[in-house]
């Protein structure tokens, strides 16, 4: 039930104080931005000089997958973590469509899914030369996955054993590559120069699949608010604390 006095946490004076506070903060921040020193080109020049040995032609992909690849590794970890977290919070989430999905969705699914897969593969490939890469391709593929989950009646992702593997394969391949390159080249995530492009493509391909699987899992975990909690062992995730709590 919504509170009777509306959606606000504070009364009028409290809101005004908050507004003044936020305005002051924004003003200070804006003034700081105004007085920022001019930007040096050192970083762009450095990146341009190192591009030939990075294995790709697009500077953003080079930074993301090669120079600062460790950040991307952790970030894929964050996405996987969110998928696991959403699974633990909403364990009754079922990754399958209702018995009678809207005909528009079914038509969309039939028309779009091949193109989605094609476009996703293209974006993955073109990431070497132009804006693109694993995350964008994974997002497009996730759209296809969401279509499947909402419209494909006979397709049940929950029962699929491949789903956990698909979700985890990106981080797994990335870690294996990182450790392998460490043992071969001496430094964590240091690709050998001749193989850099190939390794990046392999990592990105695995990451695309993983990102798509994780995003579909995130969508499903949030979607199932109105579904009644499923009965059975899987929904009984109360620890004994809750069971034994004498109210």
């Amino acid at each position, binding site marked *: 039930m919504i509170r009777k006095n509306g959606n606000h946490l504070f009364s009028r004076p409290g809101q005004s104080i908050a507004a003044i506070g936020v305005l002051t903060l924004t003003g200070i921040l804006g003034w700081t931005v105004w007085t920022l020193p001019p930007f040096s080109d050192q970083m762009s020049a450095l990146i341009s000089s*190192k591009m030939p040995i990075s294995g790709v032609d697009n500077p953003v992909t080079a930074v993301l997958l*090669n120079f600062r690849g460790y950040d991307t590794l952790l970030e894929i970890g964050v996405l996987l973590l969110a998928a696991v*977290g959403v699974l*633990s919070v909403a*364990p009754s989430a079922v990754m399958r469509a209702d018995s009678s999905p809207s005909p528009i969705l079914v038509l969309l699914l039939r028309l779009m899914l091949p193109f989605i897969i094609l476009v996703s593969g293209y974006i993955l490939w073109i990431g070497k030369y132009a804006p693109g890469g694993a995350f964008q391709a994974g997002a497009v593929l996730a759209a296809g996955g969401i279509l499947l989950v909402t419209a494909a009646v006979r397709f049940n992702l929950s029962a699929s054993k491949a789903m956990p593997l698909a979700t985890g394969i990106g981080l797994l391949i990335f870690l294996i590559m990182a450790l392998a390159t460490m043992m071969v080249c001496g430094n*964590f995530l240091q690709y050998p120069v001749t193989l850099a492009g190939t390794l990046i493509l392999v990592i990105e391909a695995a990451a695309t699949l993983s990102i798509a699987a994780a995003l579909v899992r995130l969508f499903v975990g949030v979607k199932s608010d109105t579904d009644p909690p499923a009965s059975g062992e899987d929904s*009984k*995730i109360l*620890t004994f604390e*809750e069971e034994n709590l004498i109210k």
Partner: protein
Amino acid sequence: MNLPAWIISLPLLAAVVTVVLPRTGRWVGIFTAIIIPLVVVLLCVEILVQGALQMQVGGWQAPLGIQLYADGLSVAMLALTAIVIGCSTFYARSYFTGKATSRSFWPLWMFLWAALNALFLSGDIFNLYVTLELLGLSAVALVALSQTADALSAAMRYLLVSLTGSLSYLMGVALLYAANGTLSIKMLATVGPASPSLSTAFALMAAGLIMKSALFPMHFWLPPAHANAPAPVSAVLSALVVKASFYILVRLWLMIFEPFINPSTAQLMGMLGAFAVIWGSVQALLAERLKLLVAYSTVAQIGYLFLIFPLSSTPQTAHTAWQGGLYFVFSHACAKAAVFLAAGTVIYAFGHDRINELHGIVRRMPVSMFAFALAGVSLIGLPPSGGFIAKWLYLNAALASGQWWWSGLIILGGLLATAYIFRFFSRAFSYFPEVVEGRPVPKIMEWTALGLALCAIFLGLTAPAVTELLNAGKPF
């Protein structure tokens, strides 16, 4: 031998394996809990021998690539993490019996460990942001694991505060990059004269980190979150997660910001710490449930940590103050984890933790109560515990730098801690003809709690060795 990389990769690998093969959760967790402390010990030895270690990930020099940095401070935090999470893993193995909970718990637990390890080894401010997010999200998901309405609300509150803090921190990172063109902490250590961008960036980053460390007045999310989480999760949250953001604040302060910040900021942080000590202790005295009492005790003890900043303002006392503060971090981590694990055994045995109804339970579970007693000794600050060493160093620094008012606060805090610890003790150790019935507790749970409490005492006895480790690589 690239030890930092292994320390970060091992828990990440364990997390992925437990996601892909959910049934292997338990023994992957135990295996990791045995291997990682060994690797950390190897790294400690290497740091002691060689001094600070710097690693370029991918072989790219700063400012192009990310640097990992390991000195005495990072390695000490890594060792602390390994000990606390290692013991809690053995505890958790017996604590979680439901199949579905185990399936979610182990990946989240391994991600938490990976996030902590990556955080303590990072030398790049944006990398720290990613590790902070990894840490925050895994902590929130672990709090929500209890699935009660209170736990879910607490997790939501924690998540909102955590995200706000991360966003503030990220804005500070963006400002620092826009002004200086580099993300590496080592390179930022040489930034130029004081400018608005430096002060604003520090204000933003400090505000974000203070929110995540639950310093008064941003502490409101901590008691419900730590009280409603499962026991091993509460232990690690209180012991390590709130200290991680504090660690980042200390790093940034020491390496980048200290020369440029007005000393009154340090005094302000000390004042907030003082309020935290008093407010947290008073609320702990009023708490009805044991876990809530312990959570408020964490709020109070975090206040002590922030006394580092004013106490280190004079050069001759700076070293003592830093060591005192970090000793607080270590001994509080061990003691608080022990107390939460012991509280968990109480709940396991009796089904509730209402203090007024826990009469005479020392006869049912002597090992847990002994652990609680030892940990309490450290929390109060009695010799020969680690807590005593920490307070003694603080008192030295306070009196030597002429800021005698902090010593009054430390003594008052000790008295208040005695009061709330004994509030539980008097019930637990009281003689009562009928003792509450409870179910038997697995031995491993009680003994891990005792092990951590012994660590807190042990820290007090081995102070010279610990301080030598802390000073390796000259972090201060």
